[in-house]
C-alpha cells in the first residue's frame, strides 16, 4: 500500500429517476392550502368561546399539530407516493380500512370543501373587494355587485365557475398549476402584508371611526360600530369576559381546521422532487406549519392592536350569532373585510382583494389535486375502476378523475348554497377530515411494526429514542392530540357534529363510511371474479 487515496464512485451510463414539484413549491402549496385566509379562527372562536385567547389557542393548535406533522415526515419519506394518506393507511392497517377511511372521509367529504371554496371566493374574495372598491371610489354599482355576488345564486355561479376554471387549469398540466401557484403565493403575501400594516398602524378608536365611514359609504347606518356592538351585546356577547382556559383550548380545534392541512402535500408525494429526503419533507410539512401558525398568530395580534377585543367580538357576532347589524352590505366582517374598511385607498383594497381571491381559488385547486391523486392511487390498487386511474397521454394529468370530481361537486355546491338543512347534515366535515390525519399519525406510530421492511429502508429509521423508534413515540403523541381535537368535533356543541342537538349529522358520517366500505367490498368482489385479490396491492413480499 504505497499511498492513501480518496475513492470516488465508478459510474456507467444509465438513466436516472426524476420527479416534478420542487420542495419549495410544495412548501408554498401547503401554506396556501392551510389558508392563512381562512377566517374561522377570528370570526367563530371569539363568540363561541367567549373569554378565550386567540393567540394562545392558535399556539395550542400548533403544538397539537406538530407531532402529527412530524409523523407525516416519516410517512412521506418512507412512502413518497401519490395518494399519500390512502397509501400510508392501506399499507399499515390494510386495504379495507385504508380505502374506507380515506375514500369516505377525504374523497367524499372534500366535496364539501369544493363548495366551501366557492363560498370563500364569493364571500371572502369578491364581495369585500367589490364593496371596498365601490365605497372607496363612490361607485354604487360595484357595491351592488359585491352584495349580489354573496347571494345564494351569486355564490353558486361563482362556485361552479371556480371549479370549472380550476378543472381546466389542472387538466391542462400540473406544471401550469405550479407556475400559477407562484402568482397566488406572491399575491397572498402582498395581501397579508398590507392587512398587517393596516391593523398595526391603526388603533381601536380610529378603527371605529373608519369602519363607521366605510359602512355608511356602503349604505349602512352612520354609527355602524356602536349599533353593531349593542346588537351583539343583546345577542349575548360579553364584551368583558374573564379569561377561559378551556375555551382557549377549544380554539385549538378551530385553528386546526387550518393547520391540519400542513400535511396535505403528501397526496401528491409521487410528484415532488426528492420527496424521499427527510430534510425536504421536514421543510415542506413542518416548515409550512411553522410559517402558517406564525402568520395566523401575527394576524390575531394585529387585529387586537387594530380593532381591539371589542372589534373582534363584534365581527365574530355577525358570523356566529348571525347579528345582522354586524355585517356591512350583508357581508361578514372577516379580517380582510375589516382591513378593507380601514383604508380608503383603492390600490390597497385591490391588493388585499386579489390575494384573497387567488388564495380562495387555490383552495379549490388543492381539493382537486389531493383527491384526484388519491383516486388514481386507489384505481391503480384496483379499488376504484381503472377509468379513474387513467393519465391523459398528452396532458399527463388524471383527466377522468378530475372530471368525475367536478361533476360530483356540482350538486354539493347547489345543495350547500340552496338548502338550509345541508349545513346541518354536513357538520361532520371537520370531524371526517381530522379523523384521516389522526389515523395517519397512528399509522406512523405503527409503521415500524406493521410494515417493518418498508420502515427499515426509510431514512427516518435511524432516529430512535432509546429502544423505541422515534416515529412510534411521535406518531402516538400525534394520534392522542388528533384524537382530542377530533373528539372535540364529535362532542363539543360549538365545534361540529353536536351543534344541531340531533343524531342526523352523525348518521351522515356513518353513512359515508358505510358507502366507502360498500365500494371496497364491491370492487374486491369484482376483482376476485377475475382471478385477482386486491389484498395483493398492500402486501409486502418477504425477500427470503
Amino acid at each position: 500500500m504505497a499511498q492513501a487515496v480518496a475513492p470516488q464512485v465508478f459510474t456507467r451510463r444509465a438513466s436516472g429517476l426524476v420527479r416534478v414539484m420542487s420542495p419549495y413549491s410544495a412548501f408554498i402549496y401547503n401554506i396556501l392550502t392551510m389558508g392563512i385566509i381562512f377566517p374561522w379562527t377570528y370570526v367563530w372562536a371569539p363568540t363561541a368561546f367567549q373569554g378565550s385567547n386567540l393567540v394562545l389557542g392558535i399556539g395550542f393548535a400548533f403544538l397539537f399539530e406538530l407531532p402529527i406533522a412530524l409523523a407525516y415526515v416519516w410517512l412521506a419519506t418512507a412512502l413518497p407516493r401519490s395518494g399519500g394518506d390512502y397509501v400510508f393507511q392501506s399499507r399499515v392497517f390494510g386495504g379495507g380500512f385504508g380505502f374506507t377511511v380515506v375514500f369516505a372521509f377525504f374523497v367524499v367529504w372534500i366535496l364539501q370543501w369544493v363548495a366551501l371554496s366557492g363560498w370563500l371566493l364569493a364571500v371572502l374574495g369578491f364581495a369585500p373587494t367589490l364593496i371596498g372598491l365601490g365605497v372607496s371610489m363612490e361607485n354604487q354599482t360595484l357595491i351592488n355587485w359585491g352584495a349580489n355576488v354573496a347571494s345564494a345564486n351569486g355564490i353558486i355561479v361563482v362556485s361552479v365557475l371556480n371549479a370549472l376554471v380550476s378543472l381546466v387549469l389542472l387538466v391542462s398540466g400540473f406544471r401550469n398549476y405550479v407556475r400559477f401557484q407562484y402568482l397566488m403565493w406572491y399575491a397572498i403575501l402582498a395581501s397579508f402584508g398590507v392587512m398587517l400594516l393596516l391593523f398595526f398602524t391603526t388603533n381601536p378608536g380610529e378603527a371605529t371611526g373608519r369602519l363607521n365611514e366605510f359602512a355608511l359609504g356602503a349604505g349602512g347606518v352612520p354609527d355602524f360600530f356602536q349599533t353593531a356592538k349593542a346588537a351583539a351585546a343583546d345577542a349575548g356577547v360579553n364584551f368583558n369576559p374573564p379569561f377561559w382556559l378551556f375555551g382557549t383550548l377549544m380554539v385549538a380545534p378551530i385553528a386546526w381546521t387550518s393547520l391540519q392541512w400542513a400535511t396535505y402535500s403528501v397526496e401528491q408525494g409521487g410528484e415532488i422532487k426528492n420527496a424521499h429526503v427527510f430534510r425536504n419533507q421536514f421543510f415542506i410539512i413542518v416548515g409550512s406549519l411553522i410559517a402558517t401558525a406564525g402568520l395566523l398568530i401575527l394576524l390575531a395580534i394585529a387585529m387586537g392592536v387594530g380593532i381591539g377585543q371589542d372589534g373582534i367580538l363584534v365581527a365574530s357576532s355577525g358570523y356566529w350569532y348571525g347579528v345582522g347589524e354586524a355585517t356591512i352590505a350583508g357581508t361578514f366582517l372577516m379580517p380582510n373585510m375589516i382591513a378593507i374598511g380601514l383604508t380608503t385607498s383603492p390600490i390597497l383594497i385591490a391588493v388585499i382583494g386579489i390575494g384573497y381571491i387567488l388564495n380562495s381559488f387555490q383552495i379549490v385547486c388543492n381539493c382537486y389535486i389531493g383527491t384526484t391523486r388519491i383516486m388514481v392511487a386507489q384505481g391503480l390498487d384496483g379499488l376504484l375502476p381503472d377509468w379513474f386511474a387513467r393519465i391523459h397521454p398528452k396532458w399527463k394529468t388524471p383527466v377522468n378523475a378530475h372530471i368525475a370530481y367536478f361533476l360530483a361537486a356540482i350538486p354539493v355546491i347547489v345543495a350547500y348554497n340552496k338548502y338550509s338543512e345541508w349545513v346541518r347534515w354536513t357538520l361532520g366535515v371537520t370531524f371526517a377530515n381530522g379523523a384521516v390525519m389522526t389515523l395517519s399519525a397512528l399509522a406512523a406510530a405503527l409503521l415500524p411494526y406493521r410494515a417493518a421492511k418498508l420502515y427499515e429502508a426509510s431514512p427516518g429509521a435511524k432516529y430512535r429514542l432509546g429502544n423505541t423508534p422515534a416515529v412510534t413515540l411521535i406518531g402516538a403523541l400525534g394520534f392522542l392530540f388528533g384524537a382530542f381535537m377530533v373528539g372535540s368535533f364529535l362532542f363539543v356543541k360549538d365545534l361540529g357534529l353536536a351543534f344541531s342537538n340531533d343524531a342526523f349529522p352523525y348518521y351522515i358520517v356513518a353513512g359515508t363510511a358505510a358507502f366507502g366500505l360498500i365500494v371496497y367490498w364491491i370492487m374486491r368482489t369484482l376483482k376476485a371474479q377475475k382471478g385477482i385479490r386486491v389484498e395483493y396491492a398492500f402486501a409486502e413480499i418477504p425477500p427470503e
Partner: protein
Amino acid sequence: MPFWKKGGSGGDPTRLFYACDIHGSEPTYRKFLNAAKFYDVDALIFGGDLMGKLLIPIVREAGGTWRARLQGQDHHITSDEQMAEFRKILQTLGFYWQEMDPEEYLEYEGKQDRIDDLFDVLAKERLAGWIALAEERLGGTHVKVYLCGGNDDTDEVLSALEEVPGDRVVNAENRVVPLDDEHVVVTIGYSTPTPWETPRERTDPEIGEAIEKIMADVPDPSRAVFNFHCPPLDSSLDTCLKLDASVWPPTPVIENGQPVYYGAGSQSVADALASRQPTVGLHGHIHESRGMTSYGRTPAYNPGSEYGEGVLRGLIVAIRGGEVIGHQFTSG
C-alpha cells in the same frame, strides 16, 4: 392433459407477475422470485434492466480499515460487522463493489473502458447467481421465470442468460417463447435513445424493424404478451423529465422555473400495440411513469420501479383466451 387448456377460453386463467428495472438490487430480485408463491402466479416475467448503475470501490487503508464513498459521503469501515452492513446497503441499492488496494484503485481511476469491463464482470457474476437462485427457488414448481435485458444491460452481461443450468429460467431475450398452452411471450429489450447513451438503445425505426422481424415468429398476435421494455410513445407510461444532453451529466431542462416533461417512449411500440392488438403490453424503462393505458382492446401497463428503496413494484395480470380478465398493481 387437463380438460381445459391452461390460459385457453373457458379454462383457468394464466396468472403472471411482471416487474422490471430492478437494476441490480438484490432484495428486490429476491422479492421478485418470491412473488411466484406469494401472489400464487403461474409465471414471472421480467421486463429488462437487470444491471446496477454504480460500482463502489472499497479501498483498503493502513491499519486494516477500508474507505468508500457512497451517496456523497465518505464511509470509514473499521470492522467486519460494518463491512457486512455496508455491503447490505449496496445490495439493496443495486450497486456493485470491489475491494481493492490503493494502487489497484488508481489503475481504474479515469479509465472508463477498464471500469466498464469491471462492471460487466461483476454484473455477469450477479446475474449468474440470480439465475442459479431462480432455479433453486422455483425448482419443483410449475412456475417459470422469463428473464431478459433492457436498454441498460450490456450484451456481455446478458450472455449469462445463454448458460441457464436448469429448466425454470427462460431466456426470453429478443425471442418468442411459450407462456402457456395458448399464449406466447414476445420480448424486445431495446429502448429509444436516451441522454445517458445506454448500451442497447435503438432508433425508433430500428425498434420497428425488430418488432416486424420478431412478429414473423408469432402465430397469433392476439395471443401474444408483448414484453417490450420501451413503453409506447406519449402513452402516459413514458412521461419523464426532459434532459439537456449537451452537457454531462445531462441536466433537467427548466422552463419558467419548472422542469419540462415529455414522452420518451417509442412510436413503433405504440403502432405495434395498435395494429397487432396483442393480449397485453408490458413495459418499463420509465421508472416514475407507473400506470396503464389501452390500445383498442389491448391494455398496456408500466408498473414503475422503486428498486433503490428495496421496493418491488409489479403487476399481476390474469389472461385467458387472448384477453386480460384482471390485473392488479403491486408494491411490495
